[in-house]
């Protein structure tokens, strides 16, 4: 299958007062057409920097050190701002975490959704029809009558549905969903996940789904990218990684999830230690300082991606024995 997005050796630094912070280091992965790929990692692992790089929304102090991100044949990191602007919303779009701040509070939903079609050479009535159509698809009851409503008149779940509708209106090839269910309650989270699944199969777009919630990833995605301290440490099919993780970090992360521990326990697992300082990343493997399996080799040599099986690799010298 042809890859929709192919990211290779992406490295991004930030210029800070304490020196250069290496926020992303040598990130590579690809997303096939129609695939839902999850990105999981804890705060500070570089998830947001990754999205910002792909959307060309990086802060001014960011430096692109190396890498490419091919959306079909265009390199998102190299094309002009003008070309990028043409791609945003049409070929690649984002659903952000907080549906309240993603929408403009002083413009009605209908107007906002008509405005974003400014590139289309069609009449306003047709644009309006399109808006009603997509709002109906995301499950807004009686959309025609809600066009004049403002974001504050919608509940959290409905607002997120509106954001999803806006992102999918132009049938993009790639949808980036940045923790779209984190601000929602459990029963609504399930509804939104189901909606994303339905729309994905209908529109056929690929989804890059960012989350720190392992359960959500397991439920929605077919492949998962595990990030730690700016690196992709493991990549592979959800079923394999969740059943037999190959990187010690993935394994520990899974062990920590209280949802996985079905027996009552007074002492819960955690990962001792802290994230390394990324202005001066420690030599060798980035996870070494918190890893039980670390040896001399891990200090001396940065691990390469070790293939575990087809489409499944881990950046660990002991990827096999870690299982």
């Amino acid at each position, binding site marked *: 299958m042809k890859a929709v997005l192919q990211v290779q050796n992406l490295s991004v630094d930030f210029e800070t007062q304490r020196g250069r912070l290496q926020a992303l280091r040598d990130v590579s992965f690809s997303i096939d057409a129609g695939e839902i790929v999850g990105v999981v990692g*804890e705060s500070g692992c570089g998830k947001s920097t990754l999205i910002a790089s792909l959307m060309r929304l990086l802060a001014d102090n960011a430096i692109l050190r190396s890498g490419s991100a091919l959306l079909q044949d265009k390199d998102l990191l190299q094309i002009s701002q003008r070309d990028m602007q043409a791609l945003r919303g049409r070929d690649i779009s984002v659903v952000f975490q907080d549906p309240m701040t993603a929408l403009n509070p002083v413009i009605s939903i209908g107007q906002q959704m008509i405005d974003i079609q400014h590139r289309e050479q069609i009449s306003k009535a047709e644009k309006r029809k399109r808006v009603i159509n997509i709002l109906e698809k995301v499950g807004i009851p009686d959309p025609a009558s809600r066009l004049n409503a403002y974001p504050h008149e919608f509940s959290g779940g*409905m607002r997120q549905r509106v954001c999803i509708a806006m992102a999918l209106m132009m049938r993009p090839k790639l949808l980036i969903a940045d923790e779209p269910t984190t601000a929602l309650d459990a*029963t*609504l989270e399930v509804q939104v996940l189901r909606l994303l699944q339905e729309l994905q199969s209908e529109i056929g777009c690929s989804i890059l789904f960012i989350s720190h919630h392992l*359960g959500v*990833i*397991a439920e929605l995605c077919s492949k998962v990218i595990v990030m730690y301290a700016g690196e992709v440490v493991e990549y592979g099919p959800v079923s394999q990684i969740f059943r037999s993780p190959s990187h010690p970090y993935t394994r520990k992360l899974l062990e920590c999830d*209280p949802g996985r521990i079905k027996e009552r326990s007074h002492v*819960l697992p*955690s990962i001792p230690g802290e994230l390394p300082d990324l202005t001066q990343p420690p030599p060798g493997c980035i996870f070494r300082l918190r890893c039980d399996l670390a040896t001399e080799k891990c200090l001396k040599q940065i691990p390469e991606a070790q293939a575990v099986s087809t489409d499944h690799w881990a950046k660990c010298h002991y990827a096999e024995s870690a299982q």
Partner: protein
Amino acid sequence: MNDTLLQLNNLRVTFPVNHGLKGLFTPRHKRSVDAVAGVSLQLNKGETLAIVGESGSGKTTLARALNGLVSIASGEAIFDGHVLHQDPDWSQIRREMAMMFQDPTGSLSPRMTVRSLILEPFAIHSVALNDPDQTAISLLEKAGLSRRFLDRYPHQLSGGQARRVGIARAIALQPKLILADEPTAGLDVSVQGEVLTLMNHLKRDLGLTTIIITHNLNILRHIADRVGVMYLGRLVEVGSVEEIFNTPSHPYTKALLSANPTPDPDATHHRIELIGETPSLLSRPAGCEFHTRCPWAKAQCSRVMPDLETHTNAANLVRCHFPLNELHPGAISRPD
């Protein structure tokens, strides 16, 4: 010996609703909403009670009412001999009832060092200390932080460390009750475990009584003894943590439990998907307030409001006309 530490009877907390000029013509009962609409429960010494529910279910408001941060509209609340609903001396009560607020870093003053943050409760309640530094160090150590954190400011702490400072502040005056509002919200999975283990240890070592407010069902099983499930400001089910997880009796509890995605790709989901969203507090549904979203609702449910009571065929106290249970397996499968 009386083991009851806290007793609530039909506690209500209301918030005024601003209708603007239209308010002049709004009937009196529509000028306010009941954020907490008649909660009754009893908490014994040494017990950990978890209050779960989604946003807007009134769980945080309940905690704030107990601490005097919002006023009680009606009903009774008696905490260790103090009558909370009759405008008591809150400063005395807050000394015995400590609050841990939601945002671990945001609830610490950014201009104070960890030392002064931990010693602040003593200053507020004019407790003289022989050796303040030693007290601060011993509290920090109880919370699992070393003394080198004493001179740091909140922005120099990670989320987990800030949460530990919050715990040290909460236990500083040896309170009888701790109200913990979302103790693990905003923390990474790898740190959640640490904080929960610490709270479990403190409970064991100091004999703490705790009320935990949370929407995270995953953590409950490991920390709570009893669970109360709230919906639209009312308790819909109360029971021991095992019974809530193993034999939920209220359809909402069941839906909430099944909506909880587990990191297991092999898990077979018997998921109950709720239709629609939580109704507004301004227009509470008639009858059972859950009937608009309940997959098992019957005609009676839209007419008569059920009470929170014991049922012969349910293990827990439940507010439902037709509680689910294993004796009626037909009720578990989805209708239609």
